[in-house]
């Protein structure tokens, strides 16, 4: 029978590395996607995702189950991502070039489904608009969009109230809409 997150955490706290491996297996893709949504760069996102689980392993002894494991791990991931964003020196133009390189290197199979020029332009504009958001506003958009988390869960992850989450989402969406008004 599959163990719950709580049971795996208890086993980790008892020193079972295999339990921790199972937790990593369950959440590494989700954590990576959230981080990638924030950093928009694969290498950086992988680095931060690995660091997230390293930190989680270090701190797991102190995890008391007040929140769910996934909000706890997301909190670590988002905090590290926000730190990384502040240190990030890449600009949107560099990002677009590296994404193009990546897509090209992956060949036909990786080509995005929006072959149409209008949508490609919309995606580029949206990517640029997302990058222009502050780390905090980007975080709420990413957590809501990628994970479909509730305002309550997002608030727990970011350490703010539901009202703040709502306000940040509203502001971020308004900013994105203003920049993409011609396309929407």
């Amino acid at each position, binding site marked *: 029978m599959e163990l719950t997150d709580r049971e795996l955490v208890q086993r980790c706290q008892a020193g079972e590395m295999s339990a921790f491996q199972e937790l990593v297996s369950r959440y590494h893709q989700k954590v990576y996607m959230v981080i990638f949504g924030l950093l928009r760069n694969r290498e950086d996102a992988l680095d931060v995702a690995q660091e997230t689980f390293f930190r989680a392993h270090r701190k797991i002894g102190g995890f008391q189950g007040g929140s769910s494991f996934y909000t706890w791990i997301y909190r670590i991931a988002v905090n590290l991502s926000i730190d990384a964003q502040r240190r990030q020196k890449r600009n949107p133009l560099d990002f677009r070039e590296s994404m193009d390189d*990546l897509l090209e290197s992956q060949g036909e199979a990786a080509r*995005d489904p*929006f072959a149409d020029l209008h949508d490609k332009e919309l995606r580029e504009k949206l990517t640029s608009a997302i990058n222009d958001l502050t780390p905090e506003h980007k975080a709420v958009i990413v957590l809501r969009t990628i994970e479909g988390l*509730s305002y309550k869960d997002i608030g727990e992850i970011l350490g703010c109230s539901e009202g703040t989450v709502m306000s940040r989402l509203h502001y971020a*969406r308004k900013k994105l809409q203003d920049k993409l008004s011609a396309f929407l």
Partner: protein
Amino acid sequence: MNGCEDKVASIERWLDGELSGAESESLRVHMVACAGCSEARRRLEKLQSTLTDVLLSEAQPVDFMPFWRAVQLRINEKRPWYQDALDWMRGVLPASRLAWVVPAVIALLLAGVSLESYWRGGRNAFATVESIDAYGRNVALLREYDTKTTVIWLYQDQEGENEAAEETAPSGPAF
């Protein structure tokens, strides 16, 4: 939007599944009747779907085993002590908190310096003679540390003056 600006936030919450059943139904009925809100809903849904496609499609899948090996490597690697200290500090003092801690510390330091000079000013019981003019007479300054006493002593020894006084009065204190 014709005065439905306040409805946009509700529409967002509705799309996010954060409205109660009754609130949802009320909003849904309103959107059917209101062209402005209906358009706002359309734009938000379009934005949301584009966001989802952009954010989900660009993230490549991550192979677990190479990822896990990299995590294990970090766990087994011994980090320099200052790295842990820096990490701890970043956790305790994120940039947003640091932005207030730094000026608060500056303000406290300045307040402490001011208070210390104020305190010192009061505690320093010695009088300080900043200027003195005895019009040609000899004058002595004495500081007695036990009692923190400052004494200015004027000698009556200007030539031709107060000779009678000098005959009767002691020449000066024996300090």
